[in-house]
């Protein structure tokens, strides 16, 4: 009985998320009494594939795509066929852009119940019950997956990587992708910037930043900490910062280890986007701002006055 985990690659490389997925899949495999098998689609060097075995993958299957384009239908067909060939009982994907595209299609194709956006191991495997957040983190629910095959998508930054080295077994499988209907016309990529969804530390600003011209110290703090920058919805709506930085219910949902909310009052919709964050630090001039109910650490004060002090304190920490 196997647990198949789809490990996406970024220009032939894996990242922390890939290892979180394999660690998670191998724990699920232990629970169902099976083994974790990783699936990689596209061109990835063996040395990179071997890394997956470090986190518990007993076998690594590679499939060549018929195309460079990410065609949701074709990828679904490939993953479904591999799952069927293996007789996989559980298929694990990331709850990221690609996982959100593929998991629901796979659910229908394999007639497999989908537990979307889980952050913990299943509560039980017989019956198969998963725990996930609902109402954008305002509540949680236990959901039974009633089908024979199950699909789980794992929330990023929610599961600790565990080393569990296995002998490396790489197998190339021939699977036809079928018709490719997606034509990619153009790709725009930012390079050299930490992705908001990957970041372990995020420094985020709200209306308390007062003007689009005041973000220098916030960016400096982020740079010093190796953090990504983010913002609240009013800030992106005003055009002070790009939409891609908007964190909240309708923007990006993130789960870093540490989140600085600078001049953000903490509307329910904002909290919904950061509710799985491990530690929230809030800086706000209003002591009654709701952000302090979500935060573990707080400073009451004006963002523009507190930021330079935080920058100095981090510089001092780094000089030690």
């Amino acid at each position, binding site marked *: 009985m196997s647990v198949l985990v789809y490990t996406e690659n970024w220009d032939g490389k894996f990242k922390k998320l890939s290892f979180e997925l394999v660690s998670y899949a191998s724990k699920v495999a232990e629970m169902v009494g099976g083994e974790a098998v990783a699936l990689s689609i596209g061109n990835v060097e063996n040395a990179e594939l071997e890394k997956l075995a470090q986190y518990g993958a007993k076998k690594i299957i590679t499939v060549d795509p018929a195309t460079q384009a*990410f*065609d*949701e*239908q074709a990828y*679904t067909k490939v993953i479904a066929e591999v799952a069927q060939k293996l007789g996989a009982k559980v298929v694990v994907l990331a709850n*990221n*852009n690609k996982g*959100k*595209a593929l*998991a*629901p*299609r796979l*659910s*229908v194709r394999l*007639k497999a*119940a*989908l*537990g*979307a*956006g889980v952050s913990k191991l299943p509560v039980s495997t017989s019956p198969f019950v998963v725990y*996930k957040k*609902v*109402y*954008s983190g305002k*509540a*949680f*629910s*236990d959901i039974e*997956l*009633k*089908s024979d095959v199950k699909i789980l998508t794992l929330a990023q930054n929610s599961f600790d990587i565990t080393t569990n080295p296995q002998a490396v077994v790489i197998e190339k499988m021939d699977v036809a992708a079928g018709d490719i209907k997606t034509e*990619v*016309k*153009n*790709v*725009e*990529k*930012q*390079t050299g910037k930490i992705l908001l969804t990957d970041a372990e530390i995020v420094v985020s600003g709200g209306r308390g930043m007062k003007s689009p011209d005041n973000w220098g110290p916030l960016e400096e703090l982020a740079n010093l*900490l190796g953090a990504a920058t983010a913002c609240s919805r009013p800030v992106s709506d005003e055009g002070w910062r790009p*939409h891609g930085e908007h964190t909240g*219910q*309708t923007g990006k949902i993130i789960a870093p280890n*540490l989140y600085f909310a600078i001049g953000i009052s903490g*509307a329910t919709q904002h909290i*919904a986007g950061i509710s799985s964050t491990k*530690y929230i630090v*809030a800086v706000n001039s209003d002591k009654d701002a709701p952000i302090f109910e*979500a935060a*573990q*650490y*707080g*400073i*009451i004060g004006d963002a523009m*006055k*507190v930021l330079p*002090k*935080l920058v100095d*304190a981090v510089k001092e*920490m780094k000089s030690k």
Partner: protein
Amino acid sequence: MKVLVCISNVPDTTTKVKFVDESKLDTNGIQWVINPWDELALTRALEMKEDASNGIEAVTVAHVGLAAAEPTIRKALAIGADNAIRVNVDPKDAYEVASQLAQVVKAENFEIVLCGIESADHNGSTVGGMLAEFLECPSVTCVSSLKMEGGKSVITREIDGGKEIVSVPTPFVAVVQKGIAKEPRIAAMRGIMAARTKPIKVAEPQAVASLTEVKKYEMPKPRAACKFVDAENAGELIALLQNEAKVL
């Protein structure tokens, strides 16, 4: 071309949710609204219809749910949808919703189907992709811009750290997110009046077995009280993050 926008009826996003016996949502005092992402999808569909170059003749909204959701459907009509279809069943899960919607799309031959990327209740991000697989048609997910040019789709989808412009043939499902429309359109008085006479077709459901079942709901554990540090002493905060939280 005909566009279908799938809408979900959800509690207003500012709602503080409560449950009865850990098993169902306490609906007392809840304001029901069009799911925010679906509302953006509807706004974009209407913008496309208004710009003749997209070649859109009609925008229909579809909802899977009981008659209690009609005020939300009327709101979609007031915003500007031409007509609506409601599949008369209380769906048990996203799989059932998608399966019912697939019948609607097949019966009426919609060429473009728009779904919001997530619903504000179960946060599954599932219905759009499931629907596309039921229809065996292409889907594009994380869509932040969409138009039709000479009958061909021009779609922007978000990828990690950037975006791609892609095209897929009709019929297709676009699963849309923030950016697809600037702001949700608000119903004007004239639209509200017009919506009263717009048709809502009630379709009978197909028999579908759900794949999942909610066993219980629970509230998040309360977080510990916030620890305040004096604004003059930022160093103390950094020390707490290093030594107590161990995140630096």
